[in-house]
């Protein structure tokens, strides 16, 4: 599983070499390099898009757009370490998400039909409703705050990883996260009260 902590944090030398080779192959335009990158980062990109958009179909479309766009811009990727490559894909994804929202093509709905319910259907529906309220409340946040919350609470990135990939200090990320959570809490409160 892509979100497995041991998989994420324990990128050993062999994994690093494989990723570097995959990036180099992709930069040479070799399909196997792209397939390796796709296998490694598709879930991350999809999760990021889904966390922001809340619609499965839209998230799938955006994720596809990200990998198509990546083909044309892989030459600009210099740092081939995993955090940098992941940050590069997420950076493209962030822009694609913003483009998608600006186009106004966001479709309301939770995309419950996208996957068969695993467990209590009522509990799952409640979870999706709550998630949708969070996404709605995030409209009150800035784009940077939304980006940090997705990285921290959906992709489980550490403060250090977020700081490194967004080119901020750890303190700045912490501060931004604190303000984002505070804004989110205020935005959610009246809805709960209602």
């Amino acid at each position, binding site marked *: 599983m892509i979100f497995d902590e041991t998989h994420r944090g324990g990128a050993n030398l062999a994994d690093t070499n494989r990723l570097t080779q995959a990036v180099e192959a992709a930069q040479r335009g070799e399909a196997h390099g792209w397939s390796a990158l796709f296998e490694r980062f598709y879930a991350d990109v999809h999760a990021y898009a889904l966390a922001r958009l809340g619609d499965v179909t839209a998230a799938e479309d955006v994720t596809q757009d990200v990998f198509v766009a990546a083909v044309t811009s892989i030459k600009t990727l210099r740092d081939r370490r995993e955090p940098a490559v992941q940050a590069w894909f997420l950076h493209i994804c962030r822009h694609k998400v913003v483009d998608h929202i600006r186009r106004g093509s966001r479709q309301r709905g939770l995309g419950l039909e996208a996957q068969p319910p695993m467990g209590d259907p009522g509990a799952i529906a409640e979870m999706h409703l*709550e998630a949708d309220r*969070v996404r709605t409340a995030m409209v009150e946040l800035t784009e940077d705050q939304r980006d940090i919350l997705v990285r921290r609470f959906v992709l489980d990135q550490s403060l250090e990883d977020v700081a490194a990939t967004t080119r901020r200090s750890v303190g700045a990320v912490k501060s931004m996260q604190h303000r984002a959570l505070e804004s989110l809490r205020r935005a959610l409160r009246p809805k709960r009260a209602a």
Partner: protein
Amino acid sequence: MTDWMIDPHLSASLDAWRESSRRAPRRHARERAHDAMLDVVVAASRRGPARSFFSLRPRFGHAGLIASTATIVAAASVAAAGWNAPPGSALFVVRAARQGVMLKLPGSNDATLHLEFAEQSLADARERINPAQSLTDASAELAAAFSELSSDQTSPLWARYRLDEATLVTDESELQTESPTPAPTSAPPEPTEDDHTPAGTKPAQGGGDGEESAGPTTSQGSPSPSGGGDDGGGGGDDGGGSSHSPGQSPPPDD
């Protein structure tokens, strides 16, 4: 993964958001995205390496290349033809522009450049290329050079200036002799002993009444490059020294 210090309600909301967003992507969507990506990879590899500016639009690439090359060749031809175009020709503007640019270049020695331009005009006059206009240009350049020359009259540029001035005077005299009409830079109709400066070329006025000249004056009794001794070395009745200004023509012989 939420911080234990976060408000419990907010923490629950974030957990729901996280779980909702971590749903596994659908298989067919994943395969579709993979195929779309590989299609672009294959298309990019068929196109080959990054194209240059002119090959961005292959259909118009050749036309753009030809038009650009023709423009560059035409501009270079005009510049080459007009580099030393004679005065009066249509391309003289190129030469004038070239001289203007040379003068504006940082670090250029304006006195030297004006002397060079004057010498070119004198050479044109010698070759009978619009001699009247060439001598006018030479006179103007010498006047400009005069204003740029240093006060140190032992400088080699001063010797060069005096030689060019003498050449100008000689050429103007010859032109006057050949043509009944006066040359554009000929001396005033009735010069006096005290005022030898021609009209239009008076960067400095020699003083009468014993005043020091602000301009390049030849010392009294010294050989004058322009006067050739015809003016007797100055020494008018008013006691002032003779003054020579750039472009000065000798007084007509009585």
